[in-house]
């Protein structure tokens, strides 16, 4: 056995350190002996008073609690709520956009917005439970699909000059924002019981989910099938809601930190 193999055992499988090979290597190699002693050094225990305080904190006002729903169930429930918001949005604003678009444009729009909504919603629901954050792949996927929302209009829609670009666009965005805020409230309702170790990230996902729903509602009611209009006025709703979600997460994090500071000051 060489030093590298010994190191692997020390890190990954300490039970194998009792083997004859490992013990022989330990006798022969002074460096590995130092490392071995280092890792099996006697543990430092917290003072009894600190453990007693921790115990009383864990036992204070102890009442039965209902565990959070599984992320899949939470995603399904929230998707139902969001479907309700979508139907309400289309019912109030109409479906002129659906009629004005070709089947290919509809397919591209709803597939992309749906993908962003599903990915970000599942990531947001995972954020509710400490220690179960989304994988790196899911985080990258959410970012890539969200970025595609801003790119795809230039690919599927043409550029046509519009004399009412600013006035019509601002109104379109306002309607989209109203739908997005309702969707955001629905997502918040589903997430409210969670404990967020990364509130800003959770807010970003929640905002993205709400924004993608607002985007698809805008695509359904807005008859302006034009690249610059969709990119700016529909895309800005997604961006605004994602930023609002991040900001809300930041506020929540500050609040938690302040409460923790007060607790700490109280102990001092």
């Amino acid at each position, binding site marked *: 056995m060489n030093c590298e193999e010994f190191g692997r055992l020390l890190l990954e499988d300490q039970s194998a350190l009792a083997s004859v090979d490992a013990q022989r290597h330990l006798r022969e190699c002074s460096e590995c002996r130092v490392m071995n002693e*280092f890792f099996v050094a006697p*543990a430092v225990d917290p003072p009894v008073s*600190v453990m007693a305080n921790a115990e009383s904190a864990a036992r204070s006002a102890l009442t039965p609690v209902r565990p*959070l729903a599984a992320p899949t169930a939470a995603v399904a429930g929230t998707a139902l709520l969001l479907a309700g918001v979508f139907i309400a949005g289309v019912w109030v604003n109409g479906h002129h956009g659906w009629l004005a678009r070709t089947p290919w444009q509809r397919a591209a729009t709803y597939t992309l917005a749906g993908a962003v909504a599903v990915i970000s919603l599942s990531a947001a629901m995972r954020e509710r439970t400490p*220690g179960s954050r989304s994988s790196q792949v899911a985080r990258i996927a959410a970012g890539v699909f969200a970025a595609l929302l801003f790119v795809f209009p230039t690919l599927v829609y043409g550029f046509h000059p519009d004399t009412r670009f600013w006035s019509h666009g601002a109104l379109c965005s306002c309607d989209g924002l109203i739908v997005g805020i309702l969707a955001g409230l629905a997502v918040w309702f589903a997430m409210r019981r969670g404990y967020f170790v990364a509130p800003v990230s959770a807010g970003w996902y929640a905002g993205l989910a709400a924004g993608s729903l607002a985007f698809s509602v805008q695509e359904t009611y807005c008859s302006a099938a034009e690249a610059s209009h969709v990119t700016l006025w529909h895309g800005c709703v997604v961006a605004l809601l994602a930023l609002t979600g991040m900001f809300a997460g930041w506020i929540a994090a500050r609040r938690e930190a302040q409460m923790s500071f007060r*607790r700490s000051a109280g102990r001092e």
Partner: protein
Amino acid sequence: MEAYQQADERAAAELVRRVGPSLYRSLLAHVRDTSIAEDLLQDTWIRVHKARHTYRPPSPVLPWLYAIAEHTRLDGFRRRQRRQGRECAIDSVAEPAMERPDDIDQRLTLEKLLQALPENQREVLVMLKVSGLSLEEIAQIKGASVGAIKLRAHRGYNALRALLTPAESGGKARAQEGGAA
């Protein structure tokens, strides 16, 4: 943990007794100050108590608990930074230089040597060896793959070994190599 969620006081006390010491060691290895570690431990348990409904049986308890502890530690770090009036983003904090401590022969303390490692390697070694978590549990806490955690652990181990072993055997060179990696 399930009994704790059902308001069983004995289960709460048992959980604190079982996990408290390793949590404390993990916090102490990061902050290197017993009074801060004690404060953080207590704050962690207050948060665990508040967030106990977010644990979903039968998933492992330790990743859930350590995620809360790490969050508490980071909050504490930010709070201390603000208090000291030297606020700066965590990303911009420079990694500690990979230099061999001068008094290594006199004080071979785990905490001191671990501070010489880059943050991501130190975290993994602390969780693995000080707190006794498995590679899978650490991967779950850090949101990384088991392979990535294993790699960080081995790099940290090599850097630590270079710090612990005599300089004549090329320890410093290997430490720098580990830090660069």
